[in-house]
């Protein structure tokens, strides 16, 4: 479960990115986090992953209090999350298999667990036959699937996707979003940050709209809010 209570965040340069946000995302939910550029979406992701600390308020994520978490606990908290980025962030010098292998080793998985889990996850994202390929040998859609597989491989409680379709064409975007919905149906909480209105409207999930650091709408259905690209 993710819970933000009266969270405020101001960067060192004086930019107030988040102004008193309170919201709760229950286990197993699928949520779109939408809003124009500069609205504070990315800051919320950074707060959830422990990259930045809030100036005020409390953040709880999967049982960890992120607002006053110790450095030692941050890796443990991050293991409950799977993060997907717009630019995939795959390691180009490693094969698809090795990109997933090092993530499992990072959390101390045994070689036996790794050999069992990676083929299963690659099959789940539709990349069963591409374990030995390098990221540069794959299409953008396939690379993003590898990124999803990497986010999934440690069986996280929550997947956070930051503009995952930003570099994909409409067909690939739809495929990818369908994959995330499928993953959600298997029990994983999914939070997708996006500003693609058509995609959001198509799935009819819960949508939290952020603007100027405030939650301006939280409803099920479609994209609410005037500006999309700020």
């Amino acid at each position, binding site marked *: 479960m993710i819970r933000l209570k009266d969270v405020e965040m101001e960067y060192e340069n004086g930019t107030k990115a988040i102004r008193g946000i309170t919201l709760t995302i229950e286990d197993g939910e699928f949520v779109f986090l939408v809003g124009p550029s500069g609205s504070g979406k990315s800051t919320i992701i950074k707060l959830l*992953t*422990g990259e930045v600390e809030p100036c005020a308020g409390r953040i709880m994520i999967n049982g960890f209090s992120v607002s006053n978490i110790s*450095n030692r606990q*941050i*890796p*443990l*908290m*991050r*293991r409950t*999350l799977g*993060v997907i980025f717009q630019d995939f*962030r795959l*390691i180009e*010098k490693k094969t698809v298999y090795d990109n997933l292998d*090092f*993530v499992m*080793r*990072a*959390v*101390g*998985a*045994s*070689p036996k*667990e790794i050999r069992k889990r990676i083929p299963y996850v690659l099959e789940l994202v539709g990349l069963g036959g591409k374990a030995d390929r390098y990221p540069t040998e794959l299409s953008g859609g396939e690379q993003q699937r590898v990124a999803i597989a*990497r986010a999934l491989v*440690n069986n996280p409680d929550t997947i956070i996707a930051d503009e995952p379709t930003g570099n994909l064409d409409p067909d690939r975007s739809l495929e990818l979003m369908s994959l995330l919905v499928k993953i959600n149906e298997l029990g994983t909480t999914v939070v997708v940050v996006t500003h693609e209105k058509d995609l959001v409207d198509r799935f009819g999930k819960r949508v939290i709209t952020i603007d100027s650091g405030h939650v301006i709408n939280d409803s099920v259905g479609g994209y609410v809010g005037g500006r999309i690209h700020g």
Partner: protein
Amino acid sequence: MAKHDFGYFAHEGLSNMFSHGFMSFAAIGITVACLLIMGTFTLVAVNANGLLEDLEQENEILAYVEDTYTEAESKALQKKLEAIPNVVSAAYISKQQATEDFAARYPDEQLFQNLDPEIFRDRYVLKVANLERQGETVEQIRNTPGIANVNAHEEIAGGFVTVRNVATVVCVALIAILFVVSVFIISNTIKLTTYDRRDEIAIMRMVGATNGFIRWPFVYEGFLFGILGAVIAFFLQWGLYEAVARGVANNDTLQLIHIIPFEQLWVPVAEVFAGAGIVIGVGGSLSAIRKFLQV
């Protein structure tokens, strides 16, 4: 769940080294250069020290026995002289022997060939362990009953001591400076390879890798840089040393200088190179990666 898979870390360190070929080549090259400079300087210092020791060994003190002493009384002084602290040896030379030695030194001078031994004194040739304490030792010899006079080259002994002290200080200071510079250069070289992989490190952190997990492959990589650099530097140093030793041996003027054979030095050289290489490599790696590990 395996807590630490060191085989994996070693494999990652090795493959990282190969996959970042140019930077690895640079890091190893700089390690070799630093070790070679430090090694050459140290070996010159070791040989200079050996040379000074040889010269010190040749520094003798002459103690002349009173004329009134019989040969038996003169010989009895030996134990007293040897009992003086800092005296390594006291060799007795009779009047007769001194006369013969003197004549032998000037074989062409007929005047010196048939001298009366009574114009010479019985004497002792003494050697000291520590030249720095030669002054007080000479005083003790002079105060020994039966010793009429002492002849010692205190200025030369003082010169040796000064030269050795200055050489030691300069050596230690230069080696320390070179070592610090080496760690700094290696650290910066590895920092460049680390900078090249900041995305990889960011991904590792994002998936919940601990700092230890991220650090270990870099430590292995630094270790490999150090040990490979040490091995290459060792063989280059060996070749260089032998070439210089051959050059000195073949030179008419320089061949008087005794060069310590490399066979006597290779074990400490190998140990120091391996140790310094590992410290430089691992230390450089750890210092380079530190800033990337801040959560």
